[in-house]
């Protein structure tokens, strides 16, 4: 194992373990106003009037009329309002905020507010949705020729549902007017500078008018990438109006119903097969964006770029749309569009193979991309594709190949077994040239006179260990003990913008900047002197430029690779599938800390398993999310999964620190294909499954149909 990979005690272990860490909800409430949201009860309506009761002393109502700047939250585009405009576009859309010292008094005021609506017809059915926020198309090769020459053409539709991030700490933000007029905004977030930019526009002030600090954050997973910008603007406007500190922390039900989630999807795959090989795919991807655009453009981009999976499909056409529905706007969640399309392509390949009478794993293996092949967007896989070796690694651990053949035989009886395999990648870093053209990351090292070094960057610790791994890199390069290097929670008044904590980019991209900065500091080091060094992002030379308008070029500099196998036993009497084993091999390059990276692999894997099996969430005919409590939205407990067996396969990425690649999202991406594939194998016969989550209820439905 590389020296850098050797696990250390995490730098934030002690305060978290002892319960001393202060999250935004833990701050003493005296002197702070509690903010409670007034929300739309209709999925689509004209907002005619809001009638307030008499407000007691010290209680305020805040809405769009109180926004000093633009009533828009900048999240890529500007259509998300801070507080609702003339219409409301989804159930739960924030119309205003009641603030005051006592939470129950605020709730009482809320219950007395009368709203005049003119109900309009909402769009709730993704199949009927006709307003596309984003519409992309790309391809390569000669699709028509391939289809006309095909031996057989397959067509199938696949669907995936919502997934809620269910970070244990709900959304929470606080805004406090500072002496001197600057607005201090802090709370639970991933991207301090995103919040900074959004709040600036809300308050109509320059960068110096807003100060953002990330508090200890209890999980994010993408759910706190953009949403805190909205909540941050809402509390900032309230703090501006009231002149007091305002804090808004969501309850769990509120968080489950009204914050951003994974986009539900409907994907139609058409495949041409000639001489036993898939020669072409024509793919249509529909993502349910919800009521506002937020991050849908970028989620859709990644989803459609991954649409042909790990397979070398020479003739390809992909059409993707992010469609508006009058529901909670969807956003970032670990995987960011890829889990949806990877699920679809894995099941499509699975079904084609079965139709051809082939072992599905062997069929998939014959189509794998290799180093040097062209990507879906006519870029190149510049670096090794270790999937074949990784399949063998997983096989060694769980007897994958033998079991896969064994369980493919007809099974009778109450309990049936299956083992599903999925292969996938995650494009490391921001899609295309976003890193170079938009983010333009800057990171600094501040060496103090006493020889300690502080890392100045904007990437947030959300549990993934940046407060440990960033210092490890710098300490390693400077040959300092780890105690002498530290990294605090991002504070925009002190750190440069090194870009957001998203896209599995922090370690790979910013970590590399810090490594170079450390090298620079090492060469310039002067004992006893206060020094600052800075590094700016430069795009690696080898990249083929990516053009977003045509979706051509290297969408990502490199890829993290994954192979996952999940073994299940299905109880045909109850529909329940028990996971007998979950195995994986992940290539995320050199781990910056073995335990930390394994923790990410295991955590992501289980989130993916939950997404595939029990995390069912949907809205009703009125557009209201029904699974709005922890007893109705089910995530895995410790007894829902056995000990997951993950291993790391290291292919060093030369442009990541010591060979590291983006890691955070990869382990979730492949789980649905493996889980649903396993259930499908267990059920046997002609049963073909095409949606995730695939629940016990779904299983009984399929079995009942088979029996009929």
């Amino acid at each position, binding site marked *: 194992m590389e020296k850098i990979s050797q696990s250390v005690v995490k730098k934030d272990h002690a305060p978290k373990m002892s319960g001393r860490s202060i999250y935004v909800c833990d701050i003493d409430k005296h002197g702070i106003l509690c903010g409670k949201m007034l929300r739309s009860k209709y999925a689509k309506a004209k907002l005619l009037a809001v009638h307030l009761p008499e407000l007691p002393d010290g209680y305020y109502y805040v809405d769009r009329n109180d926004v000093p700047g633009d009533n828009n939250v900048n999240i890529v585009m500007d259509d998300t309002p801070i507080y609702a405009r003339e219409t409301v576009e989804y159930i739960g859309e924030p119309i205003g905020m009641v603030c005051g010292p006592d939470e129950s008094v605020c709730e009482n005021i809320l219950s007395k507010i009368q709203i005049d609506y003119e109900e309009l017809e909402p769009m709730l059915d993704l199949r009927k949705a006709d307003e596309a926020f984003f519409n992309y198309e790309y391809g390569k090769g000669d699709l028509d020729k391939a289809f006309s020459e095909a031996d057989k053409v397959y067509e199938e539709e696949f669907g995936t549902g919502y997934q809620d991030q269910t970070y244990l700490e709900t959304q929470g933000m606080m805004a406090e007017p500072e002496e001197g007029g600057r607005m201090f905004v802090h709370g639970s977030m991933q991207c301090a500078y995103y919040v900074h930019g959004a709040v600036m526009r809300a308050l109509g002030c320059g960068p110096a008018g807003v100060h953002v600090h990330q508090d200890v954050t209890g999980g994010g997973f993408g759910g706190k990438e953009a949403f805190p910008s909205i909540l941050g603007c809402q509390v900032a406007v309230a703090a501006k109006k009231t002149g007091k500190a305002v804090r808004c922390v969501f309850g769990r039900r509120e968080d489950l119903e009204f914050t951003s989630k994974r986009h539900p999807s409907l994907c139609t795959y058409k495949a041409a097969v000639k001489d036993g090989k898939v020669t072409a795919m024509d793919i249509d991807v529909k993502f349910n964006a919800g009521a506002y655009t937020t991050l849908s453009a970028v989620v859709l981009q990644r989803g459609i770029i991954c649409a042909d999976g790990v397979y070398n499909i020479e003739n390809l056409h992909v059409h993707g749309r992010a469609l508006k529905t009058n529901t909670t706007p969807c956003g970032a969640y670990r995987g960011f569009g890829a889990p949806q399309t990877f699920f679809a392509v894995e099941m499509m390949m699975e079904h084609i193979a079965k139709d051809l009478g082939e072992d599905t794993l062997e069929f998939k293996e014959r189509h794998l991309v290799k180093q040097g092949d062209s990507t879906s967007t006519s870029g190149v896989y510049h670096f090794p594709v270790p999937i074949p070796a990784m399949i063998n690694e997983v096989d060694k651990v769980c007897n994958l190949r033998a079991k896969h053949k064994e369980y493919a035989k007809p099974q009778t009886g*109450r309990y049936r077994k299956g083992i599903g395999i999925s292969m996938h990648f995650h494009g490391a870093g921001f899609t295309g040239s976003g890193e170079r053209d938009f983010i333009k990351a800057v990171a600094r090292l501040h060496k103090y006179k006493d020889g300690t070094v502080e890392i100045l960057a904007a990437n947030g610790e959300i549990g993934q260990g940046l407060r440990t791994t960033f210092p490890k890199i710098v300490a390693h390069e400077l040959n300092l003990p780890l105690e002498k290097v530290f990294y605090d929670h991002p504070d925009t008044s002190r750190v440069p913008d090194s870009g957001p904590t998203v896209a599995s980019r922090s370690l790979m991209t910013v970590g590399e900047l810090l490594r170079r900065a450390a090298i620079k500091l090492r060469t310039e080091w002067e004992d006893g002197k206060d020094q600052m060094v800075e590094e700016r992002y430069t795009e690696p030379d080898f990249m083929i430029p990516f053009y977003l308008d045509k979706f051509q070029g290297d969408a990502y500099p490199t890829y993290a690779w994954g192979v996952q196998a999940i073994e299940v036993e299905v109880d*045909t*009497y*109850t*529909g*329940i599938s028990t996971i007998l084993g979950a195995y994986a091999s992940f290539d995320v390059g050199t781990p910056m800390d073995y335990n930390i990276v394994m923790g990410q692999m295991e955590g992501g894997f289980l989130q993916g398993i939950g997404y595939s099996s*029990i995390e069912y969430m949907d809205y009703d005919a009125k557009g209201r999310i029904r699974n709005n409590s*922890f*007893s*109705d939205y*089910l995530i*895995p*407990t*410790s*007894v*829902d999964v056995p000990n997951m067996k993950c291993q790391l396969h290291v292919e060093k990425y030369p442009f990541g620190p010591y060979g590291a690649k983006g890691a955070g999202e990869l382990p979730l991406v492949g789980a649905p294909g493996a889980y649903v594939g396993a259930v499908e194998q267990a059920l046997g016969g002609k049963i073909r499954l095409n949606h995730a989550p695939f629940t*016990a*209820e779904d299983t*009984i*439905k399929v*079995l*009942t149909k088979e029996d009929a």
Partner: protein
Amino acid sequence: MVNGYAPANLQEALEIRRTRKVVPYAGGTDLMVKGTKDAVYLFLGKLPELIEIRSDDQYIRIGAAVTYTQALASDLVPALMKEAISRIAAPAIRNAGTFGGNLGNGSAKADSVLIDYVADAKLRLTSVRGERIVDVAKFYLGRKKLDLADDELITEILLPKTGLENYYYKKVGGRNALAISRVSFAGVILMDGDKIARCSVGFGAVADTVLRFPELEAQLIGKTLPEAKKRKEELLRQYSEKLALTKGRVSAEYRKAVCMNLLRDFLTEKGI
């Protein structure tokens, strides 16, 4: 205390129950989730009369404030009851949740109540006026409606001492812990020589109350196993007709299919 009473014994508790509008609070795990505003709680969790598990010549007697964890540690509690309560929620809930609370909540999803039904349990209902013993099946009048007077408290659950050894139990929830039952099933057979002396089958979580059909069970009484086997398909057909279920958190079809699968499996397992 404000908005609450912590009586020292059952008599005090019954006096308060008679004279004030209070909500009986045993473990609190259902009440506190409901969070009834302006409620006044009558705290029963520490009452000496309610926290014992006893055995007399007729019954196993479980105090209404006995927790599931306490019951799991007791040699007196029948294995079938332990199967059911060991699957309730998670350790922290089992440490606080009680038999009386499970009944008092009035839900057909109550895991211990299914066993009460199948065991033909009786409930002791006590007030200052005296007490009455009620069959659990008669205690439930409909969806969340109980035969419990405003001045009464559930004080004891009376289970038969024997006859529950040969059982079949399955809880079907959305996951393996912290799961509210979506379908729960319990079946018990008692043989007298080579003849079936008793057969009780209960379906939980699929209707407004736990379901039992004694008139269908009666068709097996007095029969040998081979005789009963001959009646099996007809019996299943009759059960299927009786189980006219509606949609809950899961579909009616799912509820029905799982109930029938488990019923058939129970009969088969027991040699019928």
